[in-house]
């Protein structure tokens, strides 16, 4: 230990530290701020607009943004403001469902694999290794494409995405638990009479919380990303005003050629905000979880 690190390690109270930290971890702060803005937009939106206007033939068609239609309308007569609100909500739903389930599967398998080791570990690890090179999105294309379009609902879409989205979390959690398991405090806990369950849940799990949080954000990111791509390829629930769907239909109608620029641009910007805030939050959490990547200031 050098003198410098010793000085650094003599630190004041946790609260002060947290305040300092948030101020320094700009990506986390900005990401959370954007996320809050999006939530506010959706909530306020639902209180003020009529969700039915998010569906075709509910408004005038092909209107540029105006006072009546602040975000304009599309070829099919959707009010894009309403479509944004509903689409944002649906995107969030897919992200949270798929991300949540994916994280749970990943954390569970990761823990089981690393903690018990042996054959179970070998099997789980091999499955992950085999599935990793398979382009997840393309398999999802097959799944979504093979289903009857009428069967593809928001929930089904989320499940399609979960199906092949758990390996990353599993491998991350597994490697973290593996290193954690070798840490000496686990040995000491054993000497203190703590059993397997206690070691998993009371000794190891708390230290993994930042990783699990980061993994969750990554899962949500990937789920939103995947649902967006599926929708852009025309494989989403076609009737729903999913952001990807809107871009898909705009592209199909040649929106730019016809001068309806707002139609694809608005969902694109919304998507940038969603994915961008998730990416920033993930970066921030990464810094929190992995002190080695902390900024050298």
């Amino acid at each position, binding site marked *: 230990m050098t003198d410098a690190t010793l000085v650094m*390690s003599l630190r004041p109270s946790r609260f002060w530290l947290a305040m300092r930290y948030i101020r320094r971890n700009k990506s986390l702060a900005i990401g959370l701020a954007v996320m809050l803005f999006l939530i506010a937009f959706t909530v306020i939106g639902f209180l003020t607009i009529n969700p039915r206007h998010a569906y075709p033939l509910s408004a005038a068609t092909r209107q540029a943004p105006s006072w009546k239609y602040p975000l304009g309308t599309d070829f099919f007569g959707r009010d894009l403001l309403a479509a944004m609100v509903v689409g944002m909500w649906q995107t969030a739903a897919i992200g949270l469902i798929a991300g949540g389930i994916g994280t749970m599967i990943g954390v569970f398998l990761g823990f089981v694999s690393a903690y018990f080791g042996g054959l179970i570990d070998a099997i789980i690890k091999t499955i992950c290794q085999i599935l990793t090179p398979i382009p997840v999105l393309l398999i999802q294309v097959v799944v979504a494409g093979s289903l009857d379009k009428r069967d593809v609902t928001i929930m089904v879409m989320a499940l399609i995405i979960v199906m092949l989205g758990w390996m990353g979390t599993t491998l991350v959690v597994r490697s973290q638990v593996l290193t954690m398991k070798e840490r000496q405090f686990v*040995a*000491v806990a054993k000497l*203190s*009479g703590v059993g397997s369950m206690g070691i998993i849940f009371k000794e190891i799990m*708390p*230290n993994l919380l930042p990783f699990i949080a980061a993994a969750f954000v990554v899962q949500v990111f990937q789920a939103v990303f995947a649902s967006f791509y599926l929708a852009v390829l025309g494989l989403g629930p076609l009737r729903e005003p999913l952001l990807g769907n809107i871009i898909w239909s705009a592209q199909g109608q040649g929106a730019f050629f016809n001068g309806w620029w707002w139609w694809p641009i608005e969902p694109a910007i919304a998507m940038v905000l969603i994915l961008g805030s998730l990416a920033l939050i993930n970066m921030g959490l990464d810094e929190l979880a992995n002190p080695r990547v902390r900024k050298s200031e």
Partner: protein
Amino acid sequence: MTNLLDLHHVSKTYTRGLINAKATVALQEISLTLKQEDPTILTVAGESGSGKTTLAMLLLGFITPTTGQIIYRGKDITALQGEERMAFRREVQAVFQDPFAVFNPFYTVDHLLSVPIKRFKLATNAKAARAKMDEALTAVGLRPEDVLGRYPHQLSGGQRQRINVARALLLKPRLLIADEPVSMVDASLRASILETLRNLQRDHGVSIIYITHDLTTAYHIANAIIVLYRGGVMEAGDVDQVIKSPQHPYTRLLVDSIPWPALDRRWGTDMIKAREAGSSSVGCPFRSRCPMAMEQCKTQPPLYKINKTQAAACYLHAGHPEIAAERLTELLPVRTQIEA
């Protein structure tokens, strides 16, 4: 009375790879006895790779021996169940080398002390638990209000290692495995930590196995010593005897290389052979570095009893009577010879 600890021909071999498995012998045929009625401090000394840490892991039951048995108070430790297992857990404790790594960074340092109290039901209520923690911390020279409620990174290395010793104290174990407890602590603090350990043995009747590469501290704290090299016993006996007049060429080299903090004991001048990476596993493990290696050394030398309290596994002492490995303990003195 049953013995506190019996090791019967304990060996540990690590194998790597499923096909073309390479076996590394970490520990070879160790037999050892500690008696309940004579608490002692026994040093197990050796360089890295000597198998001393493997021995610690075996004794704590974290790994199982490849061959041989470890008997704790009459029971094989691999077969312990239920309450017996909990009793073993409480009675055999450890102090580790790295005073930081033993703390779970998520919790305050209280966690280290409160968990064993809770798990082993050492106190009936929170107040009694706190009193126990205070008592243990005071005994190792810490003020409880200075350390409790703080996070490990907020304490100095010395404070952290003292808390570790306090943890061992709190549990009043019968056997304490001290694995390099002072090698990462400042020199000025070593003395007080070692003293606490010795008091644990003297005042509380705890047997201590002190694992180290540092013969100076070993000399000061221990009664007996076993010197390991690549998993095998090179020399064993009374610590004064072994350090003041080492008989095995390896021990001689080790003792010769101790940087004594004294102006009248300078390093020797004899040549040191560099350690080779892969030497064959038959014969004397030290022979590739030994300045006195002979043709004979290609077979494993037995232990020769040089005097009442010293034995060495080297053909240079072939004139002395052989002593079977399992009777090695008979040579190891148990009482502190210099009483303070």
